[in-house]
């Protein structure tokens, strides 16, 4: 079982991201479950969504308290929500920011987690460029695919196109690819540096 927790703000597509991730995993023959913790839905309010991926049918319905991977769509949540709760030393982290962990005051995460499993992605900028709207959810899924290998970029793109036919889907697919490449580049740059 692979558990993903997605933190975002109302309007950033955290719930949609979890759903798309589950569709992508299902498309690759896995079992998947996505579900939100809705509050009284308001734009800008903290939102959490979950996705489980497994080779067996999934019966468990509790929230993902100890995620294998965390996707953070909005770095300003750092001050409001216990984002990293339950994320173990083997956990993956995809963080939407054009800044650095150090500048965000998160340098200690590099010690607590495996640095090779942390990536920062300027997903909002990528989405603005490729889609024309600052929606970071799909590019972050592209980044997630590159970092974890748990789903392929192709499966993510197929899920996006099925949900959003036409230009909205294509723009998101471009954004997912750019973010995917961004992660691959930063990972290979790191291994070269090392």
């Amino acid at each position, binding site marked *: 079982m692979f558990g993903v927790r997605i933190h975002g703000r109302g309007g950033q597509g955290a*719930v949609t991201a*979890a*759903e798309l991730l*589950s*569709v992508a995993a*299902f*498309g690759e023959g896995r*079992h*998947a*479950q*996505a*579900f*939100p*913790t*809705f*509050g*009284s839905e308001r734009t800008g*309010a*903290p939102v959490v969504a979950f996705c489980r991926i497994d080779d067996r*049918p*999934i*019966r*468990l*319905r*509790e*929230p993902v*308290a100890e995620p294998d991977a965390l996707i953070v769509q909005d770095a300003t949540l750092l001050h*409001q*929500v216990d984002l990293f709760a339950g994320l173990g030393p083997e956990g993956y982290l995809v963080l939407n920011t054009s800044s650095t962990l150090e500048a965000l005051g998160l340098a200690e995460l590099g010690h607590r987690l495996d640095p090779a499993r942390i990536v920062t992605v300027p997903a909002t900028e990528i989405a603005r460029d490729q889609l024309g709207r600052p929606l970071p959810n799909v590019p972050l899924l592209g980044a997630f695919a590159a970092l974890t290998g748990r789903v392929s970029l192709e499966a993510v793109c197929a899920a996006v196109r099925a949900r959003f036919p036409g230009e909205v889907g294509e723009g998101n697919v471009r954004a997912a690819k750019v973010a995917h490449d961004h992660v691959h580049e930063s990972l290979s740059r790191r291994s070269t540096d090392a």
Partner: protein
Amino acid sequence: MRSQIEGSQAVARAVTLCRPQVIAAYPISPQTHIVEALSDSVRTGELERCEYLMVESEFGAMSACIGASGAGARAYTATSSQGLLFMAEALFNASGLGLPIVMTIANRAIGAPINIWNDHSDAMSMRDSGWIQLYAASNQEAADLHLQAFRLAESLSVPVMVCMDGFVLTHAFEEVDLPTQEEVDAFVPPLAPLQMLDPDDPVTIGAMVGPEAFAEVKYLMHVKQMAALDEIPVIAAEFQQAFGRDSGGLVKPYRVEDAETIVVALGSVLGTIEEVVDAMRDEGLAVGALGISCFRPWPIAEVREALEGAQRVVVVEKAFAVGAGGIVGQNVRDATRTLPLDVYDVVAGLGGRPITRASLRVLLDDVLAGRVDPRRLHFLDLDVDLVQRELERARHGERPGPHAENMLRDVGTVASGAYE
């Protein structure tokens, strides 16, 4: 066809395939996605020969369903929480008149305090309304139960509620195998009403009945529900034959053979409970689970049979009778009368609080160690300190104020989000 789909969409699709002729609904979270999808189905013509009525209230929704069903149309609605309460009077009319209406309940807590999240207090408040109540453990089952619900409702001329956990199921994306129109047409034949307002053969439906026959009409309602106890397993068996899936039925025993401790529950929490049962079985502990798929009518013989080998039964339920105790627990105690076992009533998951493996494990360990008193009502994960602090506040000052606001301030949240 198998697809990865939201629970509400799967149910809307299943209902569409059942070809309802009148849908009357009023949106309320977390039911909204179901009726939105159905209104789309009607608008696009995917669901043909169906009238969708956007009524002014839930009372109107059920009243319109009563009228439509009385006129011989297959009628459907869906609601949640306060919406179900607003229907209450009409619910009793639908069942008293014996109209085969099918309704989805996206289970949600009842206020006050207002809460949009899942528990079973809405459906449980209407448990004695004369409606059959089926509970889905997964979205596959939620979809499947609707096919069976129309069959059941129309074969006995009785209304049926299909209960599915709000958000936990309605808003969850998971795999659902949806049947084809041909398969559904074969399983759910066109409605052949047992009573009908027909200008060519006029009758009235809804007579006033005095002491001379009221009890007898009511008695027949009970007889019909008892007949449903025979009919439900037959329909579930036919369903399995047609679709190859074990969905529905009265009860779902899980590893109860030789189990000394059996956990009883309804709805989507059963999957989590099964995980806990497996983990405890791996440790050599004789634990099982019993899912109640049909709560009304109450399958007393089947529940007794499943539980009779156990020493203790732990009922985990998402509602309770304030001032009395567990609701499902009371029924389980009735089913196990004279058996040498203890029934523990545990209230869990109220207002959307997650029911986790860890909490269930602590509960079962406590029960096995004799640390839980079976004569008392228990609340899983109750924040006792929070309650104590509020009681302490309430003892001081002339006007300590409302509990809900005081306790929210105490825990530092406003509704769902932290504000500090």
